[in-house]
């Protein structure tokens, strides 16, 4: 009997190997799996609608005309401003310059959001709030609508939080950072077309850790149709939130929608920042405030200039200092220093080992927020979802 078992297993192995040569129908198998994944995450995908807005989005440098200017002869200016515009909001408007975005006029259709906590904290794309709306409405998958108030945001990730008054919202399953593999299927979901099922775009994971460790890159179409929506894997788990981000900063990132390049802020990085954003903080990329000597190729990075009022200046860094390590990681060269610093947030402490003629010293620097002046002078504003990536050799 044991011999027949042996021959049976041989026969099965041979049969198995023959089956392996038959044509694969992976897409037919994949389709119901994908649709099950969509169904699994759908309860956590919400619709964001914004109303009113005090910022004007201009195409290519036109002049800003206030909303309430009469548009024709004989029209009276308004007698009363619409309700809900509190005095401090009006003051805020005066400070903000008009947004400029070359060639892309943002539509005011609805956008998408993802439930982060069961008591009503929702992640949305910063893009959706560009107009500085006076009213934000969230509609959950079961059709209920809620008024939402703004929480904090992370400008380096193109994300903002809003809060609704709800209980028992369904939170999706989040993927831990080591579970994302380049080449795996990714699907980006959105609510813009207003159907019961969210819209779907299909692609693969093109890269991880993009934009100094902040985002996953995909070739699934990301566009206003799904900004703020989840990027999920084939099991319906959330990998990240689709947002317009850009390496060069010259456009808002929204114009990359047709290029096969899309970004999603890594969800595993967002959750640790949640408590600060819930408290209303606006988080920025961390800024050291130095430029390095480009002719020095390492090891370490030699400082050429230390900006006034920078985090580096406050900590006592000087021109000529050699940065040897950041938080126990040895700095190999200037690019490495930029990489290490740029992945951090404003307010984060970094412990530097600095080489000087007098010897090696340890200096702790509290990074500052990347200042407005460092973000894209004469280029589209930070608020349009642009990440301010500096060119080579400039301040870090």
């Amino acid at each position, binding site marked *: 009997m044991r011999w027949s078992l042996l021959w049976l297993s041989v026969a099965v192995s041979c049969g198995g*190997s023959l089956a*392996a040569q038959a044509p694969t129908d992976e897409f037919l198998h994949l389709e119901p799996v994908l649709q099950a994944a969509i169904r699994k995450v759908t309860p956590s995908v919400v619709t964001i609608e914004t109303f009113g807005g005090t910022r004007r989005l201009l195409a290519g440098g036109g002049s800003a005309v206030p909303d309430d200017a009469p548009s024709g002869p004989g029209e009276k200016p308004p007698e009363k401003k619409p309700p809900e515009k509190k005095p401090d909001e009006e003051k805020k408007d005066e400070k903000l310059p008009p947004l400029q975005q070359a060639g892309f006029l943002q539509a005011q259709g609805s956008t998408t959001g993802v439930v982060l906590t069961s008591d009503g904290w929702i992640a949305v794309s910063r893009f959706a709030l560009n107009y500085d709306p006076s009213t934000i409405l969230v509609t959950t998958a079961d059709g209920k609508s809620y008024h939402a108030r703004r929480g904090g945001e992370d400008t380096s990730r193109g994300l903002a939080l809003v809060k609704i008054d709800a209980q028992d919202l369904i939170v999706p399953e989040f993927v831990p950072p080591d579970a994302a593999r380049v080449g795996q299927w990714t699907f980006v979901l959105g609510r813009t077309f207003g159907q019961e099922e969210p819209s779907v775009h299909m692609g693969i994971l093109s890269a991880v850790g993009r934009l100094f460790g902040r985002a996953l890159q995909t070739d699934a179409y990301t566009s206003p149709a799904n900004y703020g929506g989840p990027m999920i894997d084939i099991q319906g788990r959330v990998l990240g939130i689709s947002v317009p981000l850009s390496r060069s900063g010259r456009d808002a990132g929204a114009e990359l929608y047709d290029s096969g390049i899309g970004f999603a802020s890594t969800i595993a990085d967002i959750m640790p920042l949640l408590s600060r954003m819930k408290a209303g903080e606006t988080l920025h990329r961390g800024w050291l405030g130095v430029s390095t000597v480009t002719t020095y190729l390492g090891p370490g990075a030699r400082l050429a200039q230390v900006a006034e009022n920078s985090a580096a200046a406050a900590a006592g860094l000087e021109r000529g200092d050699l940065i040897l390590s950041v938080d126990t990681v040895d700095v190999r060269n200037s690019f490495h220093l930029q990489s290490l610093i740029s992945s951090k947030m404003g307010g984060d402490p970094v412990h530097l080992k600095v080489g000087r003629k007098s010897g090696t010293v340890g200096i702790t620097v509290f990074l500052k927020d990347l200042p407005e002046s460092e973000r894209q002078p004469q280029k589209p504003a930070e608020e349009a979802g642009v990440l301010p990536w500096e060119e080579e050799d400039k301040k870090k």
Partner: protein
Amino acid sequence: MSLSWGFAACCLIAFVGSATAQDETYGQDYAFEDRAPRTPLEKLVAQKLPSLVKIHGASGLSTIDPYATGVIVSAQGHILTLDLIMIQKDQTRVVLHDGSVYHAKLYPSDRKLGVRLLKIDAGEKKLTPLVPSTRTDWSHGTFVVSLGNSFRLAEFSEKISATFGVITARARTGLRYRMSDVDYAGELLITDAPNNPGQYGGGLFTLRGEWIGLNTRIMESKETNTQISAAIPTADVAPYIDHLVRGIRAPAEEASDEPERAVFHGISLFDHGGRQSPPAYVERVARNSPARKTGLRPDDLIVRLDEYPVRSCAEFRKVMRRFAPDQVVEVTFKRGTRVLRKSMKLEEAPE
């Protein structure tokens, strides 16, 4: 003990044997000339391509592409395509998959759908028509293959291009084509199988071989201000085909969306007529009006009428035109920090 080792050895040999067997045939399978389709996806494309034709039309205007694709819908030679400007009498030629060319006769187009039927006389040649699916419930995430002569890359008898994606959404969306609004009332199958010039009039297929859509021009969605790839559901064009090919009359047209009687609701919006229409805040509610009976108050912000979003006073007026007197409309509105929903029965506007 030794038995289990023997078993393991046999399995290993079988496994290794199968692996090397695959390697030997690998190079042969990828010889340049056509190999027989093996996977369901390959079979699907091979099966559908003979039913697609290349259409060439009137050229001369820099803004139009004088080429497109069409689908054979009858054995007698009827071909469905988009209603494109370049399709002109005596100037439209159809190229079959085998490279043969024919003049096409034009049928009246369906203006609402934007499609047109052509007819060729292929003589004794056997044509393989496709049957349009009449299903309308395609799920988002369904895999689709789009076939069409993208960028006129296929010349003469070269095979029409195939590309792949999913149904992104089955939706109605405000549309724009080259700066002008498109008045299209039906649903579209929006996909991420990319649509390109020349692909118009081509077909959208599921993995199971159902023909579910006719590729449209590339248009912009007003919801997102981005271009979308889309197809008209074949369920919507089937009556047009039936009518012209088989003489089957479509049932009487449904009442249009614009009713003839004006509605009265009693809502005055705070609309100061600025350059950008402001959100639909209620300024006044008329006495004895439907809005008063529903309980609407000044300062309420109207955000939805039935399922239509209302983002501005202009949109409120536009959406209101869809309704008729005596119709009950669900009004979703924001009062303070609450979002409420109430039903309002519209009345007829007094003369």
